[in-house]
């Protein structure tokens, strides 16, 4: 599946009026609840991480999950709680059960990271085309 980068208009640098990002539509399900999200594919993230609001919408008791401290580029620790969910790229028939983290300490919607999302897919970033291609691993 191919997706165009999501573009965010920006005033930071007039020479670059848009910030393109590899953001894709996904469906996250827990038991009978589901939510649709735009999630950023982040090759630098060791695990997939979602804002805790997403867990609350799925009726997940956030703090009942496996607690883990994470560190990022800033060096500041954040606490996430990991729960199993079903993740589906919108438009794909494939559904994956992944253990993902939820945290309130994140200003973003969702990061799709290495340990689970990248483990299941071949992902080709074409920044110069502002396009990303994702194939399930078993199609290799």
């Amino acid at each position: 599946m191919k997706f165009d980068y999501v573009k965010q208009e920006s005033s930071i640098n007039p020479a670059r009026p848009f910030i393109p990002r590899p953001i894709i539509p996904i469906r996250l399900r827990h038991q009978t609840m589901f939510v649709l999200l735009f999630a950023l594919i982040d090759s630098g993230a060791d695990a997939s991480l979602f804002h805790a609001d997403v867990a609350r919408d799925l009726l997940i008791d956030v703090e009942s999950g496996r607690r883990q401290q994470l560190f990022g580029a800033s060096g500041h620790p954040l606490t996430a709680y990991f729960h199993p969910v079903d993740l589906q790229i919108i438009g794909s028939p494939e559904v994956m059960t992944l253990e993902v983290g939820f945290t309130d300490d994140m200003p973003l919607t969702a990061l799709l990271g290495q340990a689970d999302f990248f483990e299941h897919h071949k992902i080709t970033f074409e920044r110069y085309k502002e396009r990303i291609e994702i194939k399930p691993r078993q199609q290799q």
Partner: protein
Amino acid sequence: MTLTLEQVKTYQNKWVAFAGPDQAIVGSGKTLQEAKQEAVTKGYAEPIFFKVPPDAYFIPSL
């Protein structure tokens, strides 16, 4: 999908709900649940949610 600078300034750090063929913003709020409530009230049962980043470059790996 493209987020305009006006949308970014209006909704930065808020949750928004997108729906329809042109991915219009049909709800917003401080929480996903607030954005969902507004979207559902307008008749959009399955919007796609996104927390709008500010007009800044960021290093997402937190």
